[in-house]
């Protein structure tokens, strides 16, 4: 045994060192930097919405109906005279929340299903055929079905989108877990007397996090787009609370006279999706060097 004087060195945080190296490599990656910057700005704007705009997102002003972009209404106003800029800021909160929550939920569900499939080999065939069947439906169609069944709420949009993306997450996790479970360190853990739970959660799951994290960023972007599509079809988050999707949906009847109603939330969606995708590309290149295409 070592004496006490050498022990404080052991208390040095090891994980932070590794994390620092990773962060440095991420930061050197150009598309990650740009993507993270875009996402950070959008998130900050959503959080700081009340500071950036004095108005309320639902405050109507009939005098200013269809006011074009100007100094007072930089993004213009809609058919109720509501300020589009304010609505886009507040809409970011709901849209980002839907993107984040459904990506997380899909990841959790996918991890569960994928790990079960990789671990219980007998269930593999059944589970993956069900996933294949779900994958055969277009994700948006599946989401429409689930959403229609659950009724128009933010939470049902999240559940619908999450379920639609579970199958692809499950596939990613299963594929990675099948590789990891055959590695020597899993055998080594079994030799140490570790049970199934310990092996799954301590040895396999952390080692499949990298591909899972990367696909979370992509699903985040898909979910924001899908939210817009659902709103456009009239089954997104219900008005009057703004989401990027339902601002566009409400503006579509006036697209010729008041193009600004649809343009600005549309830009916000594109920008957010672009940011998440760039961020995801960077993460993938750094976390999984085998897939590296360019630095």
């Amino acid at each position: 045994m070592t004496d006490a004087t050498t022990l404080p060195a052991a208390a040095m945080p090891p994980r932070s060192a590794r994390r620092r190296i990773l962060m440095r490599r991420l930061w050197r990656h150009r598309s990650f930097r740009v993507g993270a910057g875009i996402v950070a700005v959008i998130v900050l704007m959503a959080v700081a919405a009340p500071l950036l705009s004095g108005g309320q997102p639902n405050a109507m002003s009939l005098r200013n109906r269809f006011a074009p972009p100007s100094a007072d209404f930089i993004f213009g106003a809609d058919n109720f005279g509501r300020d589009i800029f304010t609505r886009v800021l507040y809409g970011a909160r709901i849209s980002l929340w839907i993107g984040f929550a459904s990506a997380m939920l899909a990841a959790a569900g996918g991890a569960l299903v994928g790990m079960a499939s990789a671990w219980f080999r007998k269930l593999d065939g059944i589970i993956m055929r069900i996933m294949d069947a779900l994958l055969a439906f277009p994700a948006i169609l599946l989401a429409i079905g689930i959403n229609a069944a659950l009724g128009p709420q933010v939470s049902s949009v999240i559940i619908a989108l999450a379920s639609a993306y579970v199958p692809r997450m499950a596939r990613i996790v299963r594929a990675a877990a099948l590789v990891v479970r055959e590695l020597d360190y899993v055998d080594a853990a079994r030799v140490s007397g570790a049970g199934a739970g310990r092996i799954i959660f301590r040895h396999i799951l952390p080692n499949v996090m990298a591909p899972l994290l990367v696909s979370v960023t992509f699903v985040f972007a898909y979910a924001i787009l899908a939210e817009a599509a659902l709103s456009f079809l009239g089954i997104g988050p219900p008005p009057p609370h703004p989401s990027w999707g339902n601002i566009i949906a409400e503006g579509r009847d006036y697209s010729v006279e008041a193009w600004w109603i649809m343009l600005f939330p549309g830009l916000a969606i594109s920008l957010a999706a672009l940011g998440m995708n760039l961020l995801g590309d960077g993460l993938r290149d750094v976390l999984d060097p085998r897939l590296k295409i360019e630095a």
Partner: protein
Amino acid sequence: MLQIENLSVDFRVDSGWISSVTDVSFTLGPRASLGIVGESGSGKSVTALSVLRLHAARNTRMRGRIMFDGQDLLTLPERRMREIRGRDIAMIFQDPMHSLNPVLTIGDQIGETLRIHQKLDAAAAQKAAIGLLDMVRIPDAARRVTDYPHQLSGGMRQRVMIAMAIACRPRLLIADEPTTALDVTVQAQILDLLRDLREEIGMSVILISHDLGLVAEFAERVLVMYAGELVEEAPSLTMFARPAHPYSEGLLKAIPSADEDVGRLYAIPGRIPDPGRRPPGCNFAPRCPLVQPACTAAPPPLATMEPGHLIRCPVRLAAMETTG
């Protein structure tokens, strides 16, 4: 302590079952050392993995008995088997590069065995891990304990693997080609370490290798396996000085000599038969320099040549008897 009786292991393949290990028996006392030698596919690792029952149950059929402390490991429920793994029987693997989990610190991994079997908390396990790193002669253990595997060299990782294996002071350590992936100088250090630890802890060690010279130097007794069968068992000195089975002879001849200048290295002609297509008689007959017509007719039995020295070669056995 460990007594393997007529162990046979079959694996399922597309076309049915193929036999990997056939009718292997041997015993190992406490504080003993045993070497198992054979080329790739001879069944030496399969035999060792059977002791810990690490084969996928679905695709494996095991017959015979593996008695450890009076209980048959092959019939033990998985729960009980898990208690034995790591506590009573431990194992180290060939490739230290892939035997450590890249996302956990080495301290976490060494401590894991202790947390499983002795229910230590994280702090106590960490402290014990430092002691174990000291035991496997890793300098500056208190700082090294928080390193990740990628920060260590191959030799260091193998030391970490050994620390993991001896954490609970097992009575049997199975080392499956522990030095194959390492530099020659590091190989010697690791073997020295294993020898020392065997003394310190008082455990038995089974060393598996394809290097007869290395095994003979380390172990008291040596088993030679060929195509899933035991072909010779002898004390290492005997095995090294006068191997009786033509296959063991070939293995010994294949060790390049440092003193003589040989133009071409010796190799046993031919290769090990596929498990599915083994010859009807002696498995080694197609490659054997002493082959007789009788060898290809029926599989030869394992017979005692002298006390403690068994061979599976009637031709050699008969020759020994006539000469002396």
